[in-house]
């Protein structure tokens, strides 16, 4: 790589990689951020449920009977003596209180209906978790009572269950669930990453060069403006792609590590899909890299570049969120001609394993047009004397 643009490319990458700020914000942070956030959220949600189900502390109010024995027999239920059960539930000393009605056991033995009240705190997640545990126990007790009543009358228990429903999901159902999640999130993330990933590098290599005063000597070297531009553009795109890769890797680690948080959605994609999605991500990064470089060259300073790039970020975000709910199955062919929307749609197709040659060629043809147009735009900016020497 001894061509002049290659020299520019290598130097710019070296320079960018030596910038701690760039490396941390665009490579390291995205890699660890998602795993840490989701890890913590997942852990706290999980541990709270675990804590409650391990030892369900309840208050029992009323006669000492077989229900109490039945509840106490469960290894994870602990009955705590309570003087004021309302207060104790409120304070969280017990998760809930079981209050049995008068003559409970007697009514049951006479085939009558007995009643139970469960006092719980509807604002407390722990209380509700305990509620479901206790309810299950009482239901089991209830079934026991019913069984005994029927038996004493010589009737089989199955009379209560004339129809048994077995629900059996299609085997691929789970994969689809994962595809659904991916379908909404992946295009969104890829768009956002493609907007934000190349930005720091674009600002540094465009406006930064002006602000440092290195542009003038650079323009009197053998490198033509197109070579300078192309070297810079490639370096910025590489930074963007690295950013996307590390963000996605972070996201994948988060998915894998915190299944409690994401559910057990199966995120399997075919190799072909992954390759096409990767290609699309690269193209997407190049589009934004060239637009951002052009804007950055136009700007006088870092600050100005940041100001001008804000609207571009907003456009990217709007496109990203706009495609969030877009359903690719009902998308008209027209939509494949709308910038960014077409890329989001094609990504959604790749995720569900649809490879429509017409859609792919329309979208990629447009992508090439966008890239060429923004390179020409950047070149135009770079050739304008009043832009290069703006003071």
């Amino acid at each position, binding site marked *: 790589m001894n061509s*002049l643009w290659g*020299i*520019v490319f290598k*130097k710019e990458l*070296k*320079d960018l990689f*030596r*910038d701690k700020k760039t490396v941390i914000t665009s490579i390291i942070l995205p890699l660890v951020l998602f795993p840490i956030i989701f890890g913590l959220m997942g852990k706290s949600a999980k541990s709270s449920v675990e804590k409650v189900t391990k030892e369900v502390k309840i208050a029992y109010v009323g006669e000492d009977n077989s229900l109490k024995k039945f509840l106490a027999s469960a290894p994870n239920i602990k009955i705590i003596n309570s003087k004021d059960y309302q207060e104790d539930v409120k304070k969280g000393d017990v998760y809930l209180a079981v209050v049995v009605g008068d003559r409970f056991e007697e009514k049951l033995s006479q085939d009558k209906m007995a009643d139970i009240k469960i006092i719980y705190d509807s604002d407390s997640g722990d209380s509700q978790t305990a509620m479901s545990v206790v309810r299950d126990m009482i239901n089991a007790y209830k079934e026991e009572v019913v069984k005994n009543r029927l038996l004493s009358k010589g009737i089989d228990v199955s009379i209560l269950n004339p129809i048994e429903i077995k629900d059996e999901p299609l085997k691929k159902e789970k994969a689809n669930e994962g595809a659904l999640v991916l379908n909404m999130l992946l295009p969104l993330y890829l768009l956002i990453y493609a907007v934000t990933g190349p930005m720091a590098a674009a600002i540094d290599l465009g406006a930064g060069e002006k602000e*440092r*005063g*290195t*542009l*003038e*000597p*650079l*323009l*009197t*070297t*053998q*490198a*033509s403006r197109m070579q300078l531009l192309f070297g810079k553009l490639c370096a910025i795109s590489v930074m963007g792609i690295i950013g996307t890769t590390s963000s996605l890797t972070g996201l994948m680690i988060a998915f894998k590590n915190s299944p409690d948080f994401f559910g057990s959605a199966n995120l399997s994609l075919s190799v072909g899909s992954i390759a096409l999605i990767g290609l699309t991500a690269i193209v997407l990064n190049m589009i934004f890299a060239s637009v951002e470089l052009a804007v950055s060259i136009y700007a006088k300073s870092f600050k100005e570049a940041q100001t001008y790039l804000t609207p571009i970020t907003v456009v990217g975000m709007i496109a990203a969120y706009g495609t969030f709910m877009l359903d690719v199955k009902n998308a008209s062919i027209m939509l494949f001609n709308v910038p960014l929307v077409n890329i989001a749609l094609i990504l959604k197709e790749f995720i569900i394993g649809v490879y429509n040659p017409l859609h792919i060629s329309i979208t990629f043809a447009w992508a090439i047009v966008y890239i060429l147009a923004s390179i020409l735009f950047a070149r135009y900016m770079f050739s304008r*004397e*009043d832009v*290069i*020497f703006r003071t």
Partner: protein
Amino acid sequence: MIEVMGLTKKFKEVTAVDNISFKVNKGEIVGLLGENGAGKTTTLRMISTMLKPSLGTAKICDLDLIKNPDEVRKKIGILFGGEVGLYDRLTARENIKYFADLGGLSNEEANRNIDMLAEMLDMKEYIDRRVGKFSRGMKQKVAIARAIVHNPEVMLFDEPTIGLDVSSSAIVQDFILDCKKRQRAIVFSSHSMREVEKLCDRVVIINKGKLVYEGTVEDLKNENNGEDLERVFLRMVGGKNE
């Protein structure tokens, strides 16, 4: 070596440089003298092919800068402005090497030149350190080395001592004199007659884009009977001395 022929630059309504012609020979330092906004930077930018002249042209080593900008760029080195722009995260060597590479030098050539320059400018001990924390004087030397690493025959200096302290200015001035010794053709812009008097063989005075004087410093002195040249200069540019 340098032959400027009727260079003119118009920015919309403003004519920044208006039909200027002068010559610079080998081993000669020509001072381009003018007040703020006179058109010095614009002239030097045109000679260095960064700006396209609206009219006229210049020949550098017999190469026309309009027909042959790439070849012209091989022949010139520039040191513009007091602010030395360097890449802070690269070492001094890497900064210089980048420009050597972009100047089309082979690796051996580039390294040989850099070692030589490091010796000459006395920067061996910090040549492999990142320039971010360098002092002004150290940075100045790196910028100088960068400007001549490709052995240009023509050197263009645009107010190279502006904003520099005495010792950094001295580094630059010594370097300019050294270039002269090596038979380079040098254009050196300044708004200080003192500096021009000290360094230059000939002087070109421009005012509002127009050439108002061209001749040797000696002649200028003789013509004005030994009057202080600073006063002569002020008179030529209209005497707005506030």
